[in-house]
C-alpha cells in the first residue's frame, strides 16, 4: 500500500501501482462511479487492466488519469477497497517523472503552481496564471480565460503584485530538503 503512494524510482516504475491493483477484479464499479469517464479514452476499469498487464506505452499515451478530478467516488465504492484515486495521482507523477507527457498542459499547470508556492509560500493566483499561460507558449488558451480574468479583476479578487524574480524563495529550504530526500528514496 505504501508503494502506491510513493513514486517509485525502481526498475519498473509501474510496479508500485501494479501491486496496489493486483486485486482488481474488473467489476467496473469505478467506471460507473466516475464523473468524467465519458471524456476518457480508456475507462478507469480498462486503465487498471492495462496497469495489471504492464502496458506502459498505452497507459502513458492515455489521457485517462489526467481527467481524474479526484472526486473519490471510485475509492469510496471499490468493493476491493483499492486506493484508486491515489493510483490516478501516482500515474500523474510517473508520467511527469518519465517525461511521458502527451498532456503537457496539466503537468505544466501543476508545476507552475508549485513553483509559485516555493516562491511566495502562498499561491498568488494572478502571478501563477500568467506564468502558466507563458509556459504553454500558446496564445489561444489564455483567451478562453480572459472573460473570467476580467470579471475577477473588476471585483478586485485578483491583483497584479510585484513578482519576485530573483530573490530567494520563501520555501526554498523545505523544497531542497524534499528533493534530497526523494532522490535518496
Amino acid at each position, binding site marked *: 500500500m505504501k508503494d502506491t503512494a510513493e513514486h517509485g524510482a525502481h526498475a519498473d516504475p509501474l510496479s508500485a501501482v501494479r501491486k496496489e491493483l493486483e486485486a482488481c477484479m474488473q467489476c467496473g464499479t469505478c467506471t460507473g462511479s466516475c464523473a468524467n469517464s465519458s471524456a476518457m479514452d480508456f475507462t478507469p476499469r480498462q486503465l487498471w487492466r492495462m496497469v495489471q498487464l504492464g502496458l506502459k506505452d498505452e497507459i502513458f499515451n492515455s489521457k485517462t488519469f489526467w481527467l481524474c478530478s479526484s*472526486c473519490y467516488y471510485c475509492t*469510496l465504492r471499490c468493493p476491493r477497497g483499492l486506493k484508486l484515486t491515489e493510483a490516478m495521482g501516482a500515474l500523474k507523477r510517473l508520467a511527469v517523472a518519465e517525461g511521458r507527457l502527451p498532456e503537457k498542459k496539466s503537468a505544466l499547470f501543476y*508545476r507552475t503552481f508549485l513553483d509559485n508556492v516555493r516562491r511566495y509560500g502562498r499561491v498568488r*493566483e494572478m502571478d501563477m496564471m500568467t506564468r502558466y499561460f507563458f509556459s504553454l507558449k500558446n496564445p489561444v488558451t489564455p483567451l478562453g480565460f480572459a472573460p473570467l480574468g476580467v470579471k475577477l479583476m473588476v471585483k478586485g479578487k485578483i491583483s497584479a503584485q510585484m513578482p519576485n524574480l530573483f530573490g530567494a524563495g520563501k520555501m526554498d*529550504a523545505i523544497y531542497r530538503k524534499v528533493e534530497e530526500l526523494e532522490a535518496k528514496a
Partner: protein
Amino acid sequence: MKYFYYPGCSLEGTAQEYDASTRALMGALGVELLEIEDWTCCGASAGEAVSYLLSMVLPARNLALAEKSGIEADMLVPCSACYLNLKKVEDHTGRGDHLLDRINEALAQEGLTYAKGIRPRHLLDILAKDVGQGRVSGKVKRRLEGIRVAPYYGCQALRPYEEFDDPQLPTSMEPLIEALGAEVHPWEMGAKCCGAGLMTTKKPVALNRVGELLAAAKGADCIVTVCPMCQMNLESFQGKVSRSAGEDLGLSVLYLPQLIGLALGLSEQDLKLNLNFAYSKTLQQKINLK
C-alpha cells in the same frame, strides 16, 4: 469555542468573500478563530501530481505551526481541498513506512515538528456538529421563509474521509438551512463532482459537470457551497453553460456562511456579497423584504 483557522490561498484571493463571511459568521456565533501565523499553501491538487513527499510536507507545515503554539484546539478549514490535504497527512503518516520521519526531516529546515496533535476539521463539520442547529436558530434575525436552497457539498469534504456526513447522500447542511426558515431543494446532486481543477486543464469536461448541476438545481432560489473551487466553477460560467444547453441555467450561488450570515442579520458588506458573480437581484430583493 475556539479553533485554529487555516484560510488557505483561495480565501485570500478569488474566495475573499468566503473568508470574510466565515469570520463574520463565527464572530456572530461567538466562536473564536485563531489564524495560524505564517501559514502557507497546502499543495492543492498540484502537490500530489508532482511530488508525493512535498504533497505531505506542505500541509504538515501548517499543522506543525499550530502545534508549536501550544494551544489545544481543532483546526477549522473552510476549503475542501485544503481540508483533504491536511487530513491526508494525518492518515498517511499512520500507514507506517517512516513517512512521519521524512516529513519532520524536511520541516526541521524551519525548526518545526509535526506530532499529529492537531485535528483538521471542515467548516461544515464544525457548523453542523459543534455549533449545531439550535445555536444557529436562536440567533436568526430574519427568517428566510419561502427561499429554496440547494445544498451543494462537493467531493473532498465528504470523500474519502467519512468524518461527519454520508459520503454519497449528505444531509448535514439541511438542519442548518431549516434553522434559517428556508426550505431544502430536494436533489441528489449534492455530492457530485463540479469538475474541480479540470476547469483549468480540461475546460469542456468541467463545463459539462457544471451544466448537470445547474440543471438539477432548477427550481431552487440558490445553491449554497462549502468550497472555493465548487463556488468558482458553479458561479463563473453560467452564461457559457446556458448557451450550450440552449436554456437559461443562471442561478444564485452563495457560500453557506453568507446565507446563514444574512439570516443572522449580518450586512451584505460584512459578507462581501458584492463579490459574488451569481447573486441575483430577485433573490437579493426576496431576502431584503424579510
